């Protein structure tokens, strides 16, 4: 019994294998816009390295965002296909839940951030209350000043936080802004695997087609009257990925 965890929510991608007790293997990398080409070779490499056969995969967990629309769909489509082909159970876990989860023990109010393009970030707030670690807000897409207006207490930021973003948060929030160390604020599929495994233990299996991205934002209504076939993605926006600076 093994769980395969897939996450291509942003420019960072991660894949893990988990047996309910140990993470057997994990690979996290900066895929930029190559997720589609690199996801399957990575899965096959982890299977070969751990000598786990596909026949023994009976659970699949996938990160459902919010994040890059196209990125999310790559892992979700792959996960649906693998689950269907292997007869495995499939579970979706929010990418922000995965980011916040390793910081539960800190008991800090935690805010994972992921770039949402056009100066916005996907975010949510997590906190322990009555000994339960839970998401305490809806999923948000907002600029940093908009987000900070909702912050009154010390908050631990995790996720994809560049130097510029960190400085902006420090400027607005002063000492209330806390930052997890670079390695501990990264998103890792091992945590997705844990959350997915636990969710499958407690909640019933959903239809594969019902596992869908958490989009938060509406599709841009930029129609394609004069150009029904978009050129190959030469810029990040074409992939729905946020611009990098």
């Amino acid at each position, binding site marked *: 019994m093994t769980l395969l965890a897939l996450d291509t929510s942003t420019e960072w991608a991660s894949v893990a294998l988990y047996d309910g007790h140990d993470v057997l293997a994990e690979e996290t990398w900066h895929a930029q816009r190559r997720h589609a080409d690199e996801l399957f070779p990575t899965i096959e490499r982890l299977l070969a390295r751990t000598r786990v056969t596909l026949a023994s995969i009976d659970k699949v967990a996938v990160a459902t965002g919010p994040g890059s629309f*196209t990125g999310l769909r790559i892992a979700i489509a792959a996960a649906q296909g693998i689950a269907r082909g292997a007869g495995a159970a499939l579970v979706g876990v929010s990418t922000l839940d995965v980011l916040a989860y390793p910081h539960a023990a800190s008991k800090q109010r935690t805010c994972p951030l992921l770039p949402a393009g056009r100066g916005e970030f996907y975010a949510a707030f997590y906190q322990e209350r009555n000994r339960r670690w839970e998401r305490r807000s809806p999923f948000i897409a907002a600029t940093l000043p908009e987000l900070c207006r909702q912050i009154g207490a010390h908050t631990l930021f995790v996720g994809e936080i560049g130097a510029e973003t960190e400085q902006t948060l420090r400027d607005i929030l002063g000492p209330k802004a806390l930052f997890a160390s670079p390695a501990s604020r990264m998103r890792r599929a091992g945590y997705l695997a844990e959350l997915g495994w636990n969710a499958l233990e407690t909640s019933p299996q959903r239809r594969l087609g019902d596992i869908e991205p958490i989009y938060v934002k509406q599709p841009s209504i930029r*129609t*394609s009257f004069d150009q029904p076939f978009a050129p*190959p993605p030469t810029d990040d926006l074409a992939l729905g990925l946020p611009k990098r600076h």
Partner: protein
Amino acid sequence: MRILAIETSCDETGVAVIDDGRRIVSNVVASQLVHQDTGGIVPEVAAREHLHALDGITQQALNDAGVELRAVDAVAATVGPGLVGCLLVGANYGRGLALAAGLPFIGVNHLEGHVYANWLYEGDTPTPEPEIPAVVLIVSGAHSDLVLMEGHRRFRPLGRTIDDAAGEAFDQVARLLGLGFPGGPAVERAAKDGDGAAFPLPRAALSGYDFSFSGLKTAVLRLVRSLEAKGEVPIADVAASFQKAITEVLAEKTARAAAEHSVETVLLGGGVAANLALRAEIQKRIGHPLRVPSPRLCTDNGAMIGAAAFFVLRDRGTEVPVNVRSDMKLA
């Protein structure tokens, strides 16, 4: 060889089960209706719809065929050309399915799919295979390609559109005349009661085999505006005149290509190939039977991808593609 084939390059979600590249065991196509509201395809909306529908449609295709995934020999999916976000849904789902079921995965060029739609048949009696060499005209909302098929999977491009695809011109004229989306069938319906000689419209006289439809589009726009100024627009006559102009250009070049290369077989593919006026214009000029897939197989579908995938495996000279390339060409 039995192939489960997936098509998600544009706005149709299609899955089919195909035997030996020719026999349709099942073929399920779900057209996305959401685009009718915008009068054009919004790529992000199309990609969302594909992901929402694909697993269910795959189940339906297997059910219709009465086979389990275990009874399939390979999984194929379109990997280009097309809308990248849409292609990624079908390709990653198909690749996952293949990996988990221990089957080979075959990435298929969508344009090869339109060509090999001509090899498909339904029922138990095979139709004769098309003779090669052949001249192939692929006309749709995204493509207007004229190619010489020299052998299986060996194509020499003769001409293509230098601006709009033929199907786009149909869509734009339909929008102009308030006929709805998609424009191909809408214009054809309106043109039935019209006079194709009512209004003279330009036929872009490009040398060689390239096409240009933007001039025709502009001429129709001017015509409609001037008719509007005078009173009511005779929609049927405008639709018929436009249809005559565009199908004559396509037919003329196709027939000329067949004559120049001394090729007997002319094959059609793509949504615009379902247009009966186009078929008639070409038929008139080539003097022997024209081979056209049924309208259902002209528009995007999984069956044609299953047909093309079979020939990828059979005539494998190169590596089987697996990665999505939205700008893939026919060569």
